[in-house]
């Protein structure tokens, strides 16, 4: 097809719904790009359409031209062609029919490097003169604003040449705009424009067309592809208003009027705008209105119940007072008669501060001090504005506070005064060069913070105490206010409160946070004053609650990198001595474990695990061995915590470090898993051996010579040892070694040598299950055969082992601190638990209907163990088949089974309640109500789960569904409200409220 025919086809097809015309334009653009034809040639071909008398043909021709311009890359243009095209397109802007298409073309040209100052000027003037932008649709208006934005940002010379007319043109163009997308562009144009030219002459026009949107509200649609949020628009408008003093000055009075708005959102917007524009308002104007605006803001502070309004009002006060201060500096600099100016401006400033100070004086001397807290906040906001204002405010307010404190005995008032003083101290820690103002009040300040004895019962006493402690912390943080000795005493006072077992819980929490803040600045003082006191109390206290508190504090300090090693060393040191209560010892061991874990988690430095091996793992092992030898071994639980710490360190170490570590330790403790030990204390060390060996990387070689023989020894211990800890450790090591053996045939051989399927009466079921765990994690098929044989053989052939087998299913899938887990580099294939579920559960479902009563119970218990470890999506998939079994299980008497079943039913209620509708009032609810009655089978967990489910039922079913059971449920809940366990009662309260408030 010839070029002329192509152009014709494009022009007449451009408004057709199919994309043929677009494809033609694409072809034209690519032929121009490739040099086969030229842009000029196509413009010439389009000429007859562009100048046609028929408006629709003109419009279509223009559209095709604009489209070609849009599709072309910048290399397809020459300087002259851009200039000619701009002249052509802008000259035709007076033709309203073609404006949308013309603007598209200009927009395409405006992005080109050849689009220069002259073209920009031509474009702007033509748009301002010939286009009545607001008469067009949103898209056209948007393109017009985009062109102007591009010119403002990229062509400052054009702006200068056009000058005031540009401002006026823009103001006229914007007038009446309503679309948020366009407004967003307009608001972004204005700050850029203000930066480049003086807008003074037409500032009023510009102000009028933008301030009319303030405060802007707009509801964002959930599917808005432009993602303009109300906040974006709000901030953009605010930035536009405060971009120039010519605009802010005009905004002052309307803003003052709008402060009184009733909507909290509007108030916040106005206050933010006042705060942001404070330094741009005309100073004379601001001074004239200052009292009025401060009064209004203060009224808001006193009257509002909205925290946001309060916060923004205080921010506005700070900004306003800061602007007054900066005004003075600039005026003095420019003044010839400096002294006179200084005096008059100092007076002005004092007058403005007096607005606040006089009122504060009244409030702080009033009898009931009812507004003390808010007055304190206002004073704080003003003091924060600048160092100078702080000094004036402090000199005025502090003596009032001291005087009131000395005279007033009321605890509430004393606390309020201390809080107000704390606010000023807080500001003084943030500002520079203000500490000298405090020095003259040194003694009076200290008198306020002197600690009195406090009663723990009294909430008021506790809060007074906390305020004082906060003040002491602030004084310590102040530069050059306290002497070193005073700081020492201050930290000691805080420490005493932290360590004292009588300290109220809320006070304790606060004081801990205060000292933690100080620890960053004074780590040495914390090391020499606070930590020794905590360790001393830890050794001596007899109260578990106190130990809990101390270890909690130490844990918080231990998260600070510079305090960690100090704390960890001291804790290990404490463990080396005997005499600590068993509970305290457990807390200490757990703390060592938690600190080790968090340090390894948060510290990515190389070599950290190596240093922990020397500083933590080795001393722990030495302690464990020494204490076992001295007949004062650790309790089992403490040993487990310490073993976890060692497991973290070993698994985080390199294979070389691991090899060196086991080379040293295996000869010393390896026999705890290969030989049956006569005494418990030596046998228990096997826990440490297991933690070390199970945490090794699969590549780390355990140098034991004959591996199969070594494993057999361990298996023997697993079967024969009279010590449960030793048997357990032996099983863990075997499972870990099998699991980490990468060669599958070797793995199988190893597993067979330990435990062959099916189990016989001689089989050690626990060891059998550990082997299944090791193989199932690798998704080894043999694991499923072993598990099925456990299911079918145990109950029929070795009934006495069935309880062990049931527990074994839990063991196969549950997480473990170190044996066959991801953390210790065990081989755990993706979705291995789900695979186990899908292999085993069908066997149970198949056998269940024909099984004996005893076998049914066994199956249900196995199912409950498996359910605990399978994601609910998997369970939900088979839930219709499982539901009858679940209901059956609720009728059985095993508490664990009931508890798990109730948890599964809870999922059913949440996810597929319809499945239960038929049996709801006849079976489901009555079974739940029966499970609420305390008995051996209805443990605390069962009762809590039952009550939770009954509450969930009220959420998920309609009033009509529940109505028949209402009386029955409320009666049962009234009875359950008197359960002897608090945990159950707490659930009953929530459930009862829910049922009592059910409405038709």
């Amino acid at each position, binding site marked *: 097809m010839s070029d002329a025919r192509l152009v014709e086809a494009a022009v007449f097809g451009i408004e057709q719904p199919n994309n043929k015309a677009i494809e033609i334009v694409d072809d034209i653009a690519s032929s121009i790009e490739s040099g086969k034809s030229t842009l000029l040639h196509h413009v010439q071909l389009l000429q007859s359409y562009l100048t046609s008398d028929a408006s629709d043909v003109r419009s279509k021709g223009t559209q095709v031209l604009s489209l070609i311009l849009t599709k072309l890359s910048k290399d397809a243009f020459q300087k002259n062609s851009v200039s000619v095209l701009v002249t052509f397109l802008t000259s035709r802007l007076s033709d309203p029919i073609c404006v949308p298409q013309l603007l598209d073309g200009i927009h395409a040209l405006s992005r080109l490097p050849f689009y220069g100052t002259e073209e920009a000027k031509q474009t702007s003037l033509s748009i301002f003169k010939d286009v009545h932008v607001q008469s067009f649709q949103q898209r056209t208006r948007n393109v017009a604003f985009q062109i102007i934005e591009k010119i403002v940002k990229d062509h400052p010379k054009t702006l200068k040449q056009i000058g005031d007319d540009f401002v006026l043109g823009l103001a006229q163009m914007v007038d009446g705009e309503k679309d948020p997308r366009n407004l967003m562009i307009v608001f972004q144009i204005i700050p850029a424009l203000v930066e480049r030219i003086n807008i003074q002459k037409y500032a009023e026009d510009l102000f009028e067309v933008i301030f009319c949107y303030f405060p802007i509200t707009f509801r964002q649609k959930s599917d808005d592809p432009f993602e303009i949020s109300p906040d974006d628009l709000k901030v953009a408008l605010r930035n536009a208003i405060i971009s120039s003093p010519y605009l802010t000055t005009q905004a002052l009075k309307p803003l003052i009027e709008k402060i009184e708005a009733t909507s909290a959102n509007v108030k916040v917007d106005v206050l933010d705008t006042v705060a942001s524009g404070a330094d741009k308002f005309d100073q004379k104007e601001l001074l004239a209105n200052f009292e009025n605006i401060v009064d209004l803001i203060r009224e808001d502070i*006193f*009257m*509002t*119940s909205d925290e946001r309004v309060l916060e923004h009002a205080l921010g506005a006060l700070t900004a306003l007072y800061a602007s007054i201060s900066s005004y003075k500096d600039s005026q003095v600099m420019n003044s010839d008669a400096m002294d006179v100016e200084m005096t008059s401006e100092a007076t002005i400033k004092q007058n403005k501060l007096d607005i606040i100070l006089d009122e504060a004086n009244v409030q702080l001397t009033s009898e009931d001090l*009812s*507004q003390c*807290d*808010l007055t304190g906040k206002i004073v704080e906001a003003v003091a924060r504005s600048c160092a100078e204002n702080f000094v004036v405010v402090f000199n005025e307010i502090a003596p009032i506070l001291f005087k009131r404190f000395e005279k007033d005995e009321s605890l509430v008032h004393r606390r*309020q005064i201390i809080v107000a003083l704390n606010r000023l101290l807080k500001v003084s820690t943030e500002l520079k060069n203000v500490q000298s103002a405090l020095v003259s009040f040194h003694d009076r300040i200290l008198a306020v913070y002197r600690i009195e004895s406090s009663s723990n*019962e*009294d*909430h008021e006493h506790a*809060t007074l105490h*906390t305020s004082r402690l906060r003040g002491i912390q602030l004084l310590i943080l102040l530069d050059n206010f306290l002497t070193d000795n005073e700081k020492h005493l201050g930290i000691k006072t805080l420490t005493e409160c932290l360590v004292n077992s009588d300290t109220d*819980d*809320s006070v304790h*929490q606060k004081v801990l946070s205060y000292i933690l803040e100080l620890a960053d600045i004074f780590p040495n003082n914390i090391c020499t004053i606070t930590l020794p006191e905590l360790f001393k109390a830890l050794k001596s206290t007899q109260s*578990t*609650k106190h130990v*809990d508190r101390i270890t909690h504090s130490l844990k918080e300090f231990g998260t600070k990198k510079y305090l960690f090693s100090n704390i960890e060393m001291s804790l290990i040191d404490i463990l080396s001595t005997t005499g600590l209560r068993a509970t305290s010892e457990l807390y200490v061991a757990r703390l060592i474990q938690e600190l080790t874990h968090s340090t390894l988690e948060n510290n990515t430095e190389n070599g950290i695990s190596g240093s922990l091996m020397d500083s933590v793992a080795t001393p722990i092992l030495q302690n464990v061995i020494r204490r076992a030898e001295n007949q004062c071994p650790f309790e089992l639980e403490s040993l487990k915590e310490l073993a976890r710490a060692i497991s973290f360190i070993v698994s985080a170490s390199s294979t070389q470090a691991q090899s060196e570590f086991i080379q040293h330790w295996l000869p010393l403790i390896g026999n705890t898993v290969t030989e049956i030990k006569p005494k418990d204390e030596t046998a228990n060390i096997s826990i440490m051996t297991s933690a070390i060996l199970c945490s090794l990387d699969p590549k780390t070689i355990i140098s034991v010579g004959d591996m199969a023989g070594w494993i057999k020894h361990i298996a023997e211990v697993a079967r024969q040892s009279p010590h449960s800890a030793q048997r357990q450790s032996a099983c863990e090591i075997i499972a870990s070694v099998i699991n980490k053996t990468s060669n599958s045939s070797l793995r199988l051989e190893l597993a067979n040598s330990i435990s062959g399927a099916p189990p016989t009466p001689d089989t050690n079921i626990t060891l059998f299950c550990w082997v299944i765990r090791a193989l199932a994690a690798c998704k080894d098929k043999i694991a499923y055969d072993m598990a099925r044989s456990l299911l079918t053989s145990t109950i029929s052939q070795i009934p006495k082992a069935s309880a062990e087998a049931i527990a074994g299913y839990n063991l196969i899938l549950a997480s473990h601190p170190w044996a066959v887990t991801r953390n210790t580099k065990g081989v755990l294939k993706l979705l291995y638990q789900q695979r186990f579920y899908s292999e085993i559960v069908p066997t149970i479902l198949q056998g269940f209907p024909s099984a004996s009563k005893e076998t049914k119970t066994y199956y249900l218990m196995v199912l409950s163990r498996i359910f605990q470890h399978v994601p609910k999506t998997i369970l939900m998939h088979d839930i219709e088949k499982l539901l009858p079994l679940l209901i059956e299980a609720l009728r059985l008497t095993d508490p664990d089974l009931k508890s798990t079943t109730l948890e599964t039913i809870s999922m059913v209620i949440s996810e597929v309640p319809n499945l239960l509708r038929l049996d709801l009032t006849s079976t489901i609810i009555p079974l739940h109500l029966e499970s609420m009655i*305390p008995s051996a089978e209805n*443990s*605390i967990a069962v009762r809590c789960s039952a009550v939770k489910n009954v509450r969930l039922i009220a959420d998920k079913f309609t009033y009509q569904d529940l109505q028949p059971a209402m009386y029955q449920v409320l009666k049962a809940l*009234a009875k359950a*409200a*008197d359960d*002897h*366990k*608090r*945990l159950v*009662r*707490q659930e009953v*309260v*929530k459930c*009862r*409220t*829910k049922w*009592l*408030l059910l409405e038709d």
Partner: protein
Amino acid sequence: MSGKINAAPQVYDVQQTVRRESPTDHDDSVHDPIDADEIYELIRNINDPEHPLTLEQLNVTQRAHIHVDDANSTVLVEFTPTIPHCSMATLIGLCIRVRLLRSLPERFKIDIKIAEGTHQSEEEVNKQLNDKERVAAALENIHLIEVVNQCLSTASA
């Protein structure tokens, strides 16, 4: 101007939890008596009728002002109105009573009182709050029970 009785009340810091978990919590053989902490946990989060603040934040309820005798099935809760002329005192007391009625076992006798010397119509309000018939009549008032439920919505969350 706001039409509230106490437009800008003093707001206090609140505790995260009243009770730490104890090792015997999960031991079914140990009896946990209903104590002041448990009652406080039930009422501390009741909303004030005037402000979006809880009774604990306004210091209207305090742990020390709750007296419980589980063995004899009695509870006495004293509360402190934020100002002595607070006309919401009766409503606050009613909210506390309803919350306890809905939560405690039926065997309990519940007394709700204004802390001594903290309200100008103390005696009258106490009388209203502890008169069974007047409380029952109040709870039949649909509008009133809606307000009470609104105040209790945060408590049972």
